[in-house]
């Protein structure tokens, strides 16, 4: 096993992590500001991927597809906020879970109704199609490297937005005392719609970015949604910083675990058995990590209001 392979796997973990961050950031933002558990976040991810695939197929340009995915996911987010979610803020979490679960079904079957059951095709843009040779002679797909950069840029952008702008100030105010900022004359309804649309756009961006790597199909959002929840539980619910650290940790632990555990077990088991047991253990690893974090820090690593 060479150092190059370990570096490559760490990069893969990073890339997976920033992807999760894009999902988790929206989820944690919505929970932090509005106290809402949004199970339909995975559907917005799917909306982004489908919008990108359709626009890219129609125009031949991935970049137009990317813009379309942001617009479509933000619009879908704003739409469900105004029509459904708005009625749920005062209800308890169980009602929210039920209603947003219903939204998953509506989105999934609606998408199937429009696009059919067969996966759509989406390829990476020409510009990022190749392989980049990293220092040390390590070949790495340019597209994955670009995802890492986009994810980091979004993280920095969100940090600046939340800590330096007026909108960010209102979001923070909304997190700490919703009634008060309403009383101070901030239009809380519009603020909620904007935050929800922002979270939705991030999910849509994530969907569009992974579209060319995976398959664009109905139901693609739910597995990611589960991981995004793991991330925000680890990071601390409501904290963007926590979501970032949590996402990177989950990405790297999962990737390295999948790679190293079967190798480690191979020392004392036969290869076929080691592969099976290692894979099973690796798939549990992030949940074990989550349990450990919760045991020592029940509110997560960076709980909001800490």
């Amino acid at each position, binding site marked *: 096993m060479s150092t190059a392979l370990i570096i490559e796997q760490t990069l893969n973990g990073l890339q997976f992590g920033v992807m999760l961050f894009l999902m988790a950031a929206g989820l944690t933002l919505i929970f932090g500001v509005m106290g809402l558990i949004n199970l339909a976040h995975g559907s917005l991810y799917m909306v982004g991927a489908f919008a990108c695939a359709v626009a890219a197929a129609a125009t031949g340009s991935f970049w137009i597809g990317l813009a379309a995915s942001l617009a479509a996911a933000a619009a879908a987010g704003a739409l469900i906020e105004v029509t459904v979610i708005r009625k749920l803020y005062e209800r308890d979490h169980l009602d929210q879970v039920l209603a947003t679960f219903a939204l998953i079904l509506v989105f999934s079957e609606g998408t199937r109704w429009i696009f059919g059951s067969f996966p759509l095709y989406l390829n990476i843009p020409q510009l990022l199609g190749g392989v980049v040779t990293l220092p040390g002679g390590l070949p790495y797909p340019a597209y994955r490297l670009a995802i890492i950069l986009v994810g980091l840029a979004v993280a920095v952008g969100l940090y600046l937005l939340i800590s330096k702008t007026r909108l960010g100030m209102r979001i923070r105010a909304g997190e700490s005392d919703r009634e008060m900022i309403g009383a101070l004359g901030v239009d809380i309804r519009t603020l909620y719609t904007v935050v929800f649309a922002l979270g939705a756009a991030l999910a849509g961006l994530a969907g569009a970015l992974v579209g060319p790597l995976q398959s664009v199909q109905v139901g693609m959002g739910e597995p990611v949604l589960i991981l995004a929840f793991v991330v925000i539980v680890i990071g601390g619910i409501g904290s963007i910083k926590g979501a970032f650290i949590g996402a990177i940790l989950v990405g790297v632990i999962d990737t390295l675990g999948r*790679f190293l555990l079967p190798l480690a077990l191979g020392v004392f088991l036969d290869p076929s058995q080691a592969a099976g047991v290692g894979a099973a253990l690796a798939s549990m690893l992030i949940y074990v990590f989550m349990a450990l974090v919760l045991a020592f820090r029940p509110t997560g690593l960076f709980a909001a209001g800490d």
Partner: protein
Amino acid sequence: MKKIIAAGLVGLAMGVSGTAMAEPIKIGMITTLSGGGAGLGVDVRDAFELAIEKSGNSEIEVITEDDARKPELAVQIADKMIQSDEVDLMTGIIWSNLAMAVVPSATAQDVIYLSPNAGPSALAGANCNENYFNVAYQNDNFHEAMGNFANKDYKKVFILAPNYPAGKDSLTGFKRFYKGELAGEVYTKLGQTDYAAEIAQIRASGADAVFFFLPGGMGIAFTKQYAQSGVDLPLMGPAFSFSQDVLPAMGDAALGIKNSASWSHDLDNEANKAFVEAFKAEYGRLPSVYAAQAWDTANLILAAAEKASVKDKEAFRAALKQADFASVRGKFSFNTNNHPIQDLYVREVVKEGDVLTNKIVEKTFTDHEDAYAAECKM
């Protein structure tokens, strides 16, 4: 006026004689029409219905229900079909875990089940049943074919499958016939979408080819990521990953990949030509291997119905067992465990005009039997 009446009488007479021959058959189809993997169920349903329709036998009633790929739902539907709809035959299940949940209880209630796809090893060996006919394959077959083919060109193959029973069966099937050395053996998480870690291992392993079994969206993700990774070792796998339903989503990344199947749309026989034509005309797309298996299932039922009454289970089973129908796979017969004895082919993904599809490269097994038939005492 006279002519019209005469024509009407002739028509009536023909209609009467038609119904006199055919007797009502109720078929319950449980298949996956929503959620992940719905494309497979849609192909099975479409081909099955088309075959029944083309036969002109209006006495066959097909009740179709969606299992959403959930075993518990499939069991409920099966109970309803057997107890309140009182179906004579059942078919349609795509996934092995659903088949395991439904088939043993259905066959125990003396309902004949014909599988258009799933063929778990647990139902092929000691637990075989006279009411269970598999018209598709035993799960290991396609993988065995690929293992046999790999012996020709490759000495060091890296193998990869999801960590669940069919994934384990897959690699076992491949290794049963592959004689070379393994560069690596990896089990991935079921439903995994990112394969960067595995591709990095393949790059570092020194393999000369890669065999993988990743059905549905997993295979699309892997193939695309592999093409982008700059690793250029040849890929091969069972047809499930390169079936007509997933090829459009893979795009050119799939070109040149070798895959094994019992059927291909370019297989040269009359029944197959008629099937491909009819399917294309009706649905405007090329049929997949699942569609071919469902078409054969329907035609097997139609052929048996001409020989025996479905109410006489003993006679109907015997008629099914003869497999006296024109299979789109050319040759087809049942082994002692009611699983197919058939030829297996290696196909290559090619582009015909703008459409990605498969072309037969060679026949790798003739009259191939599954490995479990000997354990079946029937």
